[in-house]
């Protein structure tokens, strides 16, 4: 096999963002006109359906943000930390990798399949989901299983808003989240570092807890691709890997889902993965954490300081159910 250097693309050949966004507008416009001609639907109505998609590119401001009582008053980490230090194995196992590799990731059109134990299976456009409730800013602590933490002003609303509308059957005891599988766009998926697609799961009462956030933005803007655009969950009392990114499927089940990390190593990663300073990772201590930007480590708090979730686990042996 010959390993050659790829030819450098002269910068003159790289399409400026504004131009290609316009091009997409044009193509979408043409598609709408075509669809309208075929279906006889007024093209303006169709355009209204598609229009939000065209304006929702990274760094677009999200208007009408409401404050949340769940927000911490701790100092937020700079935007740069949260966008250049990412665990997103679909793109790279290096933390600086995703920022570059996810640059051209397509977040529109995007649909989310809702199935499993529900009254009616649905395929929802992400922009329909985004309009289900008023966006809130929630400043959460975020603790990685690796021993570092950050404070991020996420944007979204409670996951329960979506679950209520999904209408799960009483038999549904768990919710499973699946990340997009698209090795063409996600180079990390061309390796077998983890089993793809990435799957995460929650018990129904955990998913319905008001702290569980359905997230589509941060720092008052649309979620950057490397942080799990266009739609992810954020579970501040659990280790970061539980907060599935770039979700395409939400499935309700009667049995506990097997999440990807548990599948990779069930001895080290459990279903619950609640932040717990008293239960060490088999290979390293979880008693302390390094808040990015700080020199000395700080003690890790039970449930990452979100004591309001403690009642979900009363009577459970958290050493066994790690």
């Amino acid at each position, binding site marked *: 096999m010959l390993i050659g250097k790829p030819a450098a693309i002269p910068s003159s050949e790289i399409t400026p963002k504004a131009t290609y966004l316009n091009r997409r507008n044009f193509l979408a416009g043409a598609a709408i006109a075509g669809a309208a001609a075929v279906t006889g639907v007024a093209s303006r109505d169709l355009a209204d359906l598609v229009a939000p998609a065209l304006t929702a590119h990274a760094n677009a401001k999200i208007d009408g943000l409401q404050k949340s009582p769940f927000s911490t008053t701790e100092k937020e980490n700079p935007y*740069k930390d949260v966008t250049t*230090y990412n665990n997103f194995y679909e793109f790279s*196992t290096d*933390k*600086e990798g995703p920022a570059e590799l996810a640059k051209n990731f397509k977040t529109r059109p995007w649909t989310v399949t809702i199935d499993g134990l529900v009254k009616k299976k649905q395929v929802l456009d992400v922009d329909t989901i985004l309009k289900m409730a008023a966006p809130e800013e929630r400043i959460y602590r975020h603790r990685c299983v690796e021993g570092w933490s950050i404070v991020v002003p996420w944007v979204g609303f409670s996951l329960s808003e979506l679950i209520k509308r999904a209408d799960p059957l009483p038999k549904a005891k768990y919710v499973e989240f699946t990340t997009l599988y698209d090795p063409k766009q996600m180079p990390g998926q061309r390796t077998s570092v983890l089993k793809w697609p990435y799957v995460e799961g929650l018990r129904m009462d955990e998913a319905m807890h008001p702290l569980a956030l359905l997230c589509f933005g941060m720092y008052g803007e649309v979620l950057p691709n490397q942080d799990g655009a266009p739609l992810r969950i954020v579970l501040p009392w659990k280790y970061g890997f539980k907060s599935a990114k770039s979700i395409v499927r939400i499935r309700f089940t009667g049995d506990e889902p097997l999440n990807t990390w548990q599948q990779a190593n069930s001895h080290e990663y459990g279903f619950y993965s609640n932040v717990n300073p008293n239960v060490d990772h088999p290979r390293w*201590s979880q008693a302390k954490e390094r808040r990015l930007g700080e020199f000395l*480590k700080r003690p890790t708090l039970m449930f990452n300081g979100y004591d309001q979730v403690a009642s979900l686990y009363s009577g459970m042996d958290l050493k066994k159910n790690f």
Partner: protein
Amino acid sequence: MALRFTKLAIFLAALVPLGRLAWKAFHGGLGANPIEVITHSTGDWTLILVLTTLSITPLRRITRQYWLIGVRRMVGLFAFFYGTLHFLTYIWLDKFFDIHEMLKDIAKRRFITVGFSAFVLLIPLALTSTTWSIRRLGGKNWQRLHRLIYFTGILAVVHYTWLVKADLRKPIEYGVVLSILLLYRVGVWVSQKRKPTPIPTPAGSRPEVTKA
């Protein structure tokens, strides 16, 4: 004369990783978690330099560039230098001299245990790296002692393998290189059992102490 220039060049080259790290540290180029970058970088370079010292004997025999032995000591000492920086990063930047925490780590965390052992085994090698020590110990004994580097190499690769979360590609790469270098020695040992071959030494150099 040429060897002196080569040595100077290698000396300067071996300082480049540290220089780069320092430059980045002062220009905010170490990213969101600088301590992690420093830990990984010093660890990587320790392993690379350990493998480099281990490759000098095979290289020298295969290419018949016997003068290469003249740079091995320096490369080995640089491996120890980066190993020390890696260890200092751990005790200072990571644990902040919390002895209690560190003792717990060494006893409980097997990747720390093997990493620590790999480093400890380097200490006698660094201490006996002088020409005086070689004379004092005698070539044979010195050589026997310095075979500890094989164990440092193995322990260091195990240390790396045990600390990664899921992506084993890099530890495997190091492991493959190490295996080749160690298998070469097994091969030499087996063939020497059959017929001993003397290795020529350049005139005026140190006594021969490099057999496999």
